[in-house]
């Protein structure tokens, strides 16, 4: 028997083993039946995650579609006014969609540069002691519950914005952007540091040997080499920002305005769902589920992007 490769060898031996087992002592016995049952149970447990994803998707579609059909998809997605409790209710979620997009873009615009610069420093310059201290600090930042961010935002950020910019109320888009920027920092830093740490030392040595300074090497050789990991970090941050509800709820003011200015009191997709859920009914409640469906579709899009970048990273390291 010629062994062509390891896989076929293992397959052959396992085939042989199963044949042997069938021939030998527990042929069709209780023990074999037990094996089958156990295998079945584990398969079922393995498929639970798939079941959960299907369940969530199906439930969201079933409960989200009716209101969209009733309101009309164009009026729903591009309607500029949300007045769910008015005598003539209007269900346009464009303000929420735009707020979520602006808010996330703002958070990324602040959070990514800070996170990126921090991770280059931590990965390439910092002494082991500083690195591990900063990593536990970042871990703490990641672990702080979102309501605590909301609370500190409410009592520090909101009055601060009111005083500095001299506006009647500090709760609004800007406050939400700053809170979100802080909340996405740890995901960006953690993932970028991992990607930068994985860059082969040879690349850097070659660049240094050619006369580049360390800073030039790190920014022009290491960073491009880790770019798909860093891109994945950014996408992860986007996902976190767009899905955050409680902290935003506490600082964004929560009035369904179009996000025309940074100080406008606004409502995000996430907070639109949670702020009316408790007392909603009828079409209003159904419309909330439709908002959740829109949010879910956004998240799926981001997931697909994340997968794309991570795959780029994987194929490179192989």
């Amino acid at each position: 028997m010629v062994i062509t490769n390891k896989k076929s060898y293992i397959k052959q031996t396992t085939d042989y083993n199963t044949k042997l087992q069938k021939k030998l002592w527990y042929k069709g016995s209780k023990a074999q039946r037990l094996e089958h049952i156990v295998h079945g149970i584990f398969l079922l447990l393995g498929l639970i995650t798939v079941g959960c994803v299907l369940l969530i998707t199906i439930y969201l579609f079933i409960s989200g579609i009716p209101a969209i059909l009733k309101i009309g998809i164009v009026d729903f997605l591009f309607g500029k006014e949300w007045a769910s409790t008015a005598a003539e209710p209007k269900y346009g979620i464009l303000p929420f969609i735009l707020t979520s997009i602006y808010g996330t873009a703002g958070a990324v615009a602040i959070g990514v540069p800070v996170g990126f610069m921090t991770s280059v420093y931590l990965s390439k310059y910092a002494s082991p002691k500083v690195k591990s201290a900063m990593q536990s600090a970042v871990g703490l930042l990641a672990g702080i519950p979102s309501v605590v961010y909301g609370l500190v935002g409410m009592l520090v950020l909101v009055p601060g914005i009111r005083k500095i910019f001299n506006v009647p109320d500090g709760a609004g888009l800007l406050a939400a952007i700053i809170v979100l920027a802080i909340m996405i920092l740890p995901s960006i830093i953690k993932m970028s540091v991992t990607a930068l740490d994985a860059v082969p030392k040879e690349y850097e040595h070659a660049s240094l040997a050619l006369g580049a300074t360390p800073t030039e090497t790190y920014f022009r050789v290491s960073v491009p080499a880790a770019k798909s990991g860093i891109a994945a970090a950014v996408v992860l941050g986007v996902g976190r920002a767009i899905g955050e509800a409680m902290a935003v709820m506490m600082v964004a003011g929560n009035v369904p305005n179009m996000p025309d200015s940074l100080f406008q009191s606004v409502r995000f997709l996430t907070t639109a769902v949670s702020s009316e859920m408790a007392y909603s009914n009828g079409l209003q409640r159904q419309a909330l589920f439709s908002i959740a469906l829109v949010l879910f579709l956004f998240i799926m899009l981001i997931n697909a992007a994340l997968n794309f970048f991570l795959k780029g990273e994987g194929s490179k390291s192989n």
Partner: protein
Amino acid sequence: MKQPLSKKRKIYEVLMKALMLLAVGLTAALVLFLLVYVIVKGVPNITWELLSTKPSYLTGRIGILPDILNTLYIVIATLVIVLPLGVGAAIYLTEYASNQRIVSIIEYAAEILSGIPSIIYGLVGMLLFSNNMGTCLMAGALTLVIMNLPTIMRTTQESLKTVPRSYREGAFGLGAGKWRVVRTVVLPGCVDGVITGCILSVGRILGESAALLFTAGFAHAVNGIIEGLASPGATLTVALYVYAKEQGEFGVAFAIAAILMVLTILINFATTTVQKKFAKKRS
């Protein structure tokens, strides 16, 4: 011989270094500020009375004992349910699955689950569980089970991958069946993954609020564990939100925030310690 850098390169060098230091300084200052601010504002408000009583409308006194108990109950209920499911799924993936396609589908599903925001979990949990069994801690726990499934699965899978192949082959060679190998060789090998997963999950449950608001409700009654799981109740984070946003009781909110902060630090510390300990054991 070292040549002096051109002016442009010098500026680049200095600028980039300055920006990096600025960013690191900003991050460090942020963490420090949050930590100190919450502790300073919160700790003076933590009294024995606050920790050991329930809120009373008659005297206007606020106590967070029910919230502490509810948090404890929900952590226990979630872990008891999610552990067998997550560990079982991980065992299937590493030990049983022979079809690569099923493996990638399951792993993709887990990835999707970990990316879904908690507010959506809250909604689906409300539809799935609360609408059928009423708003109660158990409905919240079941929602959290779905949320934490990917975490337990991933940490267990990682630890299973480190169990040497030869151990399994040795057991097979001695004539053990698959189930017996899993039970006696594989399961003991994934203890560290399970422990890490548990700690991470506890952290996530402690910090969760959006998923619990509509599934577990926000009552403040002191119950035993069985009764508690069957009735609505607020966990610490939900209580913080309610006290801060709806009632304006910032002193109580900061007291809870300080408690949560300390718990977060402990959990982070425990995670790194466990990981270091098991890494040492393995090498």
